[in-house]
């Protein structure tokens, strides 16, 4: 136990020096070439920022596809002159009754063909997978398959992540982290954001924009009292004023290639300038040419943002929206339009925002607690074990350096509970040395020579130290795999700390003590 070959000593020395250099960037700003320059990542609770857990509304994806399926079935059956009744959308699917019993097979065939991405829906997966059809009498039930829905959710999450990224980029913040979590969740971490409200405003809208004509055949109020024409619907604006708007979409927001906030040349009020792609520009030109003098509505997420009169045909493919915006609203709308629409609404499940001031305070108090805790333990161990205590203390300091070094190497995130984990490790790390030293005391008291007391002290403690640390490691690994955010940070430092503390306590102090024993050949141990 006490014999170390030269190569082993060299190897241990290299590990210690390596750990030291890994930790170094965290303490000094000097960059030495060829050496690691990574520092520990600070968690949001230490650097300040916002953490948002978002959920993609899968119900709305079901609903959207069910409704488009209804439309597809309607068009297809009509084109083929098959008579039907009771066509309606289900929770995830659609059903229809075919009146002519001879045509049921044909209808089924036609609906089966809809699988082939005919809806133009970008989420359409492979043929024959999307839904299954069950027939009983004349009732056809089209049920969307779980696997195809899952694929839709997956794509919706991926697409949402991309759009969130673009929206956040519009805010000009640095290093946002956007991750998929579970089936339909997105974890968003934005460091150093002053106003999370703005972020939430940006995420709270799906931003589906479209341009439609206002139905002027009857006023909105009149239509509400009597009957809303089937081609139109009533949509209100932000002030609650209602408009009767045609259902038919002239141009949709997908055709936009650019949007910028700006100011109107004459009124100086904030506006949003937009530009369509070529196809969108053509649609827009055609629609505006044919409807000069009539009002059209710009609808965003089922809300009219403005309903101007078309004064002259707009041929250049660009235009502007005046919606009585504030500067920030205009900016937000421009960001939303540039980034594109979310495939489904997002729900904010959890939000944590920490101000930069609190984060800095936490770092300061964490540092202080670590230093004071460390000094306290060092003093206590020195007076308890004398010379051996000083060796243990050296190992303890090395332990802290190695934790910092390993955390930097792993690019782990240090959180406030993580700092607590380090301080706790400092308290618990000496345990291994305490176990060993107590053993040595026992063995020495039983009349063994210093050398063999140390020798058997170490060998007899090994089992205990392993058992004791494996159990603690189990607890911290469970925390690591099941915990999130700050708690995970705690688990990381605790796990790393357990491993480094066993190494420093069992290997490094043993090396130092063996060197001392071999050099001085003491005849008695002062404990």
């Amino acid at each position, binding site marked *: 136990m006490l014999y170390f070959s030269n190569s082993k000593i060299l190897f241990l020395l290299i590990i210690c020096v390596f750990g030291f250099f890994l930790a170094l960037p965290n303490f000094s700003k000097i960059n030495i070439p060829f050496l690691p320059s990574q520092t520990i990542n600070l968690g949001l609770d230490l650097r300040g920022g916002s953490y948002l857990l978002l959920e993609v509304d899968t119900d709305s994806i079901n609903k959207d596809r069910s409704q488009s399926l209804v439309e597809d079935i309607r068009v297809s059956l009509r084109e083929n002159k098959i008579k039907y009744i009771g066509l309606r959308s289900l929770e995830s699917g659609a059903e229809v009754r075919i009146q002519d019993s001879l045509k049921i097979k044909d209808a089924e065939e036609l609906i089966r063909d809809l699988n082939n991405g005919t809806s133009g829906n970008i989420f359409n997966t492979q043929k024959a997978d999307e839904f299954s059809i069950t027939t009983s009498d004349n009732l056809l039930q089209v049920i969307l398959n779980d696997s195809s829905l899952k694929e839709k959710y997956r794509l919706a999450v991926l697409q949402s992540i991309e759009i969130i990224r673009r929206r956040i980029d519009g805010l000009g913040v640095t290093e946002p982290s956007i991750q998929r979590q579970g089936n339909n969740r997105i974890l968003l971490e934005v460091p150093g954001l002053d106003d999370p409200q703005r972020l939430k405003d940006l995420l709270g809208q799906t931003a589906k924009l479209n341009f439609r004509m206002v139905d002027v055949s009857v006023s909105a109020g009149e239509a509400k009292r009597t009957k809303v024409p089937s081609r139109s619907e009533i949509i209100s604006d932000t002030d609650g004023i209602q408009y009767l708007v045609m259902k038919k979409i002239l141009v949709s927001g997908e055709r936009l290639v650019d949007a910028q906030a700006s100011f109107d040349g004459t009124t100086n009020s904030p506006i949003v300038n937009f530009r369509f792609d070529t196809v969108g520009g053509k649609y827009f030109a055609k629609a505006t040419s044919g409807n000069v003098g009539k009002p059209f509505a710009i609808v965003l997420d089922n809300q009219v943002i403005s309903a101007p009169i078309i004064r002259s045909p707009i041929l250049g493919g660009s235009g502007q929206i005046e919606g009585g915006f504030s500067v920030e609203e205009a900016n937000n709308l421009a960001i939303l339009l540039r980034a594109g629409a979310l495939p489904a609404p997002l729900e904010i499940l959890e939000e944590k925002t920490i101000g930069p001031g609190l984060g800095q305070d936490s770092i300061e*108090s964490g540092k202080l607690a670590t230093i004071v805790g460390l000094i306290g333990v060092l003093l206590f161990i020195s007076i308890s074990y004398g010379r051996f205590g000083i060796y243990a203390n050296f190992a303890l300091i090395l332990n802290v350096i190695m934790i910092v070094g390993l955390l930097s190497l792993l690019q782990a995130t240090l959180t406030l509970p993580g700092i607590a984990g380090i301080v706790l490790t400092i308290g618990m790390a000496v345990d291994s040395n305490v176990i060993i030293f107590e053993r040595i005391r026992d063995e020495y008291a039983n009349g063994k020579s210093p050398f063999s007391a140390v020798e058997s002290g170490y060998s007899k403690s090994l089992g205990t130290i392993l058992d004791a640390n494996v159990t603690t490691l189990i607890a911290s690994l469970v925390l690591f795999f099941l915990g999130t955010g700050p708690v995970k940070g705690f688990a990381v430092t605790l796990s790393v700390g357990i491993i480094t503390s066993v190494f420093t306590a069992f290997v490094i102090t043993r090396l130092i003590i063996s060197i001392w024993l071999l050099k001085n050949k003491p005849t008695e141990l002062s404990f």
Partner: protein
Amino acid sequence: MKTLKLVKQNTKIEFLKIRKFTTILSVFLCASAFISFLFFNLNFGIDFKGGTLIEVKSSSIIEIAKVRSSLSVLDLGDLQIQNFGSEKNILVRVENQISSSKSSSALDELRSFGEIQRVEVVGPKISSELIQKGITAIIMAVSLMLFYIWIRFEWQFSLGAIIALIHDVLITIGIFSFFQIEFNLSIIAALLTIIGYSMNDTVVVYDRIRENLRKYKKLDLYSLINSSINQTLSRTVLTSLTTLIALFSLYLLGGEVIKGFTLAMIIGVFIGTYSSTFIASQLLLYLGVKRDWTKNNNI
């Protein structure tokens, strides 16, 4: 060199002599913890209950009554406003789920009192998930450890350890319930660490018992366990002390945010040390252990 010895070499304290007393004490504590939990429940933080939490920091003293009256116009439902660390900091808790526009106007109101330090909003979906995750984590950690102990020792040790662990967790939860200390996600982390710590303590004592079982084949179990506890006593005291030094440093200097976490740990270290000395070891006496270890070559 003169060194400090908190525990003398070769102590012969009859720990098991007071086993009736410690058993009654532990049963009483566990029962009280359970009753307290039934009557007072736990003071769940927003992690587990859902809701909104806002911390405000000012350079001068904030009058809670004024904050309350300025927020009352917003009709936020049940409000809890308290000082946090000092009179210049307050913590506002809103129990209900409030709309985004309401929370933003509440933040505007609070900005007139000082700087917003943090905002936490937890929806009901997440809070129920977090409870589930927390319980799963504890059960998983305990079962894995028991499995490990069972492999390394004998089933009696494993059973003794689990009873001691349940004892520790139950009493810690009882203390949180009785004093209505906020129980949040970080307390779950603390509980798991306590489990780890207490297990660590128990294992060291068990290890010595097992070693002595092999060494002294004729010694009666009572004396054997007693002297094992005595042999590890110095270590138990020293490690608990260094851990407590570190924890008190954190508690006093580490800031308000982790006070609850550190408090749970401090309580846990005391209970864990007590249980491995008095409870886990005496359980072996009742459970009976194998005396013939000649065929077992485990370390």
